C-alpha cells in the first residue's frame, strides 16, 4: 500500500475484439511458463534421466543411469518388483520408436505390447510416449485399456453431508450408468451414515454398482471391512522419495496396505497423478510425466490391480503448462500399457472454459478407458465435496449427446424422468427403512418428497446434524455391517434392494472383483480383464458401440420422431 501519487499514463487503447477475448472464461484460467529445474514441465525435460538398465545375478543393478548403491526407494522398489528382470535388458534396448509403433499398430496385439512393456524402465517408458502425439496416445489407449468394455465412475456427495441426498443422487447416478460411485464428506464424522446412504441408494438405482467412501486410510479400510463400502481408491502414491515420505508412507507400507484390502476381499486401486510432486514442493527437478511413470510402475510392483491417475486433484498444474494435457493423456496410456486398470481422471474442475473442459476429456472418452472419469460429479458441483469435478449434473445431456454424436460409449445414458423420480423416491424410502431398523435419526416424509424432486442440498429440509453425528458414531460403536443393512432392507419389504446388496457382499467371498478392472454388470456378472479382455485389433474389432447399447445411447431428452415430426421419441 502506498499513498505516493502514481505516474499517470494513459492506458493504451484496446480493440473491441480484445475486450471480448479478455472476457472469455478461458482467460480466467492460470497459465505459467515451464520451469524444468523445479519440475514445472509436463514431459519434455533435459533433467530427466536417459534410459538404461543392467542386470547382474538376476537382479537389476542399474536403472536409468543410477547404480543400485545410489537407488532411492522408488528405484529400489521398481527394480525389485515392477520390472521383469529376465526381459529388462532386451526390452529397454529396443528402439523407442519401435515400441511406440507397436502401441498404435493394430496388427500388434495387446499381449505382444505387454510382453515388451513389462521389461521397460521408467525413463524408457517416457522415451516411448514422448514420441507420440495425442492422437497416437488415444490410438494406443484404445488397444491397451485392460477391460474391453469402458465404464464410468460418479461422485455422490452433499455439501451438507445429507445422507438422503446422497442416497437419491446415488440411485439416479446408478440408473444413468455409473459402474462405481464414490462419496466423501465435509464433516468426516458423518462418514458411516453417508456411506450407508451411498450403498443403499446405489443398489436401488442398479444392483451391482460398487461404492466407495474416500477417507483417511484406517477409516476407509474399516468401512470396507464391514461391508458398508465395496471398494477403495484414495490410496495415494508419489513419484519422489521425499514427497512419498511427506505423505507418511513408503512403497512397502502401501504394498502392505494393498494386500490388507485384498485380504478382506475388497477391490482397491492406488491414486497418483502428474503435478502432485511439484505441487507438494519436491519434484527433484524431474518432469511431471517421468515422476508419474515411477508411480505407475510402483503400483504395478505392489501388485495392486489398478490406478486412478490423470493428474486427479493436481490437474491445475499440468493444465497450466505447455503440453500438459498431452502428458495427462500419456499417463493414462502408461497405466494401461503396463496392464493396470485405469480410472482416468476428469474428476476435478480445472478450467472456466466449457470448451476446454470438454477437450480435456476427449483423449479418455473417445478411445474409452476402464473408467472415463474417476469421478464425474453426479451431484451439482456446489455439492461436490471433492472440490468440484470436470463435469457435473448440468452436463448430463451434453455428455449423452456427445456419446450419440460420435457413437462412443462414455458409460452413461439418458434416462426418462419418471424412472429417475421413481428411483430417487425409492432410494429415500429404502434409506428411511434402514435408518429406522438401525434406530438412527428418522427420515421424514418431507425429506422423501424433497429427495424425489431435488437438484441440490439446498432443496432438502435441514437435518438435526448433532443427532445425525451421534447416530453415525453409534454405527461405528455398535459394529454395524453391510449385513445389518441387508436385514433392514429385507424386513421393510425392500426385497430386491436387499438381494442386490447381499449379492454385492457375497462377491467379496469369491474374490472375483479383485482381478484387474473388475466391475459388476447388471446381472451381477463380474466383468474384468480376464473374461472381458480388450481384443482390439483394428477397424471392426474390440469394443464397438452397437446393438442394444447403441439403441439406448441414441435416446436423448428431445429427439424428433421421423414418422411424426410433431412428436418426440424417447
Amino acid at each position: 500500500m502506498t499513498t505516493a501519487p502514481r505516474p499517470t499514463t494513459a492506458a493504451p487503447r484496446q480493440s473491441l475484439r480484445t475486450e471480448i477475448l479478455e472476457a472469455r472464461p478461458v482467460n480466467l484460467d492460470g497459465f505459467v511458463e515451464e520451469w524444468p529445474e523445479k519440475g514445472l514441465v509436463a514431459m519434455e525435460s533435459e533433467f530427466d534421466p536417459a534410459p538404461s538398465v543392467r542386470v547382474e545375478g538376476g537382479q537389476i543393478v542399474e536403472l536409468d543411469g543410477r547404480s543400485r548403491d545410489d537407488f532411492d526407494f522408488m528405484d529400489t522398489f521398481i527394480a525389485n518388483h515392477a520390472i521383469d528382470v529376465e526381459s529388462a535388458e532386451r526390452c529397454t534396448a529396443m528402439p523407442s520408436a519401435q515400441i511406440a509403433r507397436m502401441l498404435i499398430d493394430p496388427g500388434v496385439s495387446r499381449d505382444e505390447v505387454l510382453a515388451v512393456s513389462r521389461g521397460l524402465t521408467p525413463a524408457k517408458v517416457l522415451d516411448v510416449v514422448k514420441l507420440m502425439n495425442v492422437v497416437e496416445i488415444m490410438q494406443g489407449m484404445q488397444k491397451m485399456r485392460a477391460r474391453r468394455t469402458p465404464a464410468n465412475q460418479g461422485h455422490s456427495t452433499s455439501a451438507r453431508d445429507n445422507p438422503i441426498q446422497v442416497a437419491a443422487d446415488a440411485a439416479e447416478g446408478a440408473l444413468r450408468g455409473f459402474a462405481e460411485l464414490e462419496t466423501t464428506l465435509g464433516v468426516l464424522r458423518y462418514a458411516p451414515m453417508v456411506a450407508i446412504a451411498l450403498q443403499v441408494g446405489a443398489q436401488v438405482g442398479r444392483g451391482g454398482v460398487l461404492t466407495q467412501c474416500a477417507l483417511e486410510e484406517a477409516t476407509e479400510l474399516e468401512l470396507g471391512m464391514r461391508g458398508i463400502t465395496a471398494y477403495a481408491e484414495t490410496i495415494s502414491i508419489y513419484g519422489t522419495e521425499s514427497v512419498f515420505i511427506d505423505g507418511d508412507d513408503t512403497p512397502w507400507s502401501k504394498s502392505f496396505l494393498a494386500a490388507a484390502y485384498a485380504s478382506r476381499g475388497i477391490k482397491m486401486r492406488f491414486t497418483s497423478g502428474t503435478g502432485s510432486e511439484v505441487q507438494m514442493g519436491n519434484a527433484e527437478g524431474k518432469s511431471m510425466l517421468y515422476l508419474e511413470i515411477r508411480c505407475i510402475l510402483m503400483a504395478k510392483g505392489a501388485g495392486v490391480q489398478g490406478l486412478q491417475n490423470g493428474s486427479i486433484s493436481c490437474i491445475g498444474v499440468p493444465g497450466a503448462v505447455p503440453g500438459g494435457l498431452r502428458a495427462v493423456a500419456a499417463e493414462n496410456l502408461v497405466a494401461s500399457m503396463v496392464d493396470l486398470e485405469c480410472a482416468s481422471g476428469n474428476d476435478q474442475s480445472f478450467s472456466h472454459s466449457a470448451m476446454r473442459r470438454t477437450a480435456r476429456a476427449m483423449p479418455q472418452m473417445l478411445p474409452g478407458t476402464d473408467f472415463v472419469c474417476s469421478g464425474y460429479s453426479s451431484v451439482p458441483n456446489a455439492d461436490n465435496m471433492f472440490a468440484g469435478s470436470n463435469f457435473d449434473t448440468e452436463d448430463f445431456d451434453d455428455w449423452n449427446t456427445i456419446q450419440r454424436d460420435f457413437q462412443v460409449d462414455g458409460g452413461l445414458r439418458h434416462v426418462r424422468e419418471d424412472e429417475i423420480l421413481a428411483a430417487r423416491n425409492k432410494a429415500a424410502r429404502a434409506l428411511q427403512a434402514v435408518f429406522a431398523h438401525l434406530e438412527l435419526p428418522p427420515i421424514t416424509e418431507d425429506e422423501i418428497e424433497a429427495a424425489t424432486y431435488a437438484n441440490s442440498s439446498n432443496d432438502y429440509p435441514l437435518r438435526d446434524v448433532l443427532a445425525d453425528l451421534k447416530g453415525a458414531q453409534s454405527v461405528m460403536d455398535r459394529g454395524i455391517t453391510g449385513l445389518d443393512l441387508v436385514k433392514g432392507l429385507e424386513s421393510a419389504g425392500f426385497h430386491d434392494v436387499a438381494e442386490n446388496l447381499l449379492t454385492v457382499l457375497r462377491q467379496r467371498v469369491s474374490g472375483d472383483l479383485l482381478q484387474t478392472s473388475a466391475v459388476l454388470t447388471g446381472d451381477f456378472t463380474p466383468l474384468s480383464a480376464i473374461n472381458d479382455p480388450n481384443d482390439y485389433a483394428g477397424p471392426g474389432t474390440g469394443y464397438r458401440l452397437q446393438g442394444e447399447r447403441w439403441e439406448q445411447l441414441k435416446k436423448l431428452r428431445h429427439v424428433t420422431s421421423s414418422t411424426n415430426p410433431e412428436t418426440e421419441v424417447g
Partner: protein
Amino acid sequence: MSASPPPELTTADYPLSINRPELLHTPSGKPITALTMDAVVSGELSAEDLRIAPETLQLQAQLADASNRPQLAANFRRAAEMTAIPDDEVLAMYNALRPRASTAAQLAELAARLEGTYGAPVCAALVREAAEVYARRDLLARPVADSDQ
C-alpha cells in the same frame, strides 16, 4: 485348510462365483451357496461369513498368474496370509511400516511375528526388504535408550 491339493485353474474358470462356485467357501467353511437371504433373515449368517477365505485368495492368485500378472498374484498370496491377522493388528502393522515409525529391531520383530504367529512368510519377506531399504535411506526410527517398546 483343505487336505486335497488346490485345483489347477485356467482363465476360463473366471469368474469363480459363476463358473466354479463349488470351490468357494467362507472362512467358517460354509459354501458360498449358503449365503442366502433366508440364512441372513434367520440369523445364521454373521459378518464373519462374508469374509474371503485364504484358499480363495490362492485360487485368485492362480488366475492372476494364468493371466500373466505375477505381481497381482503375489499381492493375493500376501493377502491370503493376512486373512489370519485381526483387523486391528493389520492396521497396526501397516502403521509400523510408515517412514521412521519403527526401529530395525521392531521391524525384525514384526517379520518374525508374521512368520511365526501367522505363518506369513511372503509378508515377512516384504517387511524384511523394507527394513533393509529403510536402514539405507534413513527411514528407521531411532532406538530410544530406555524404551520398552
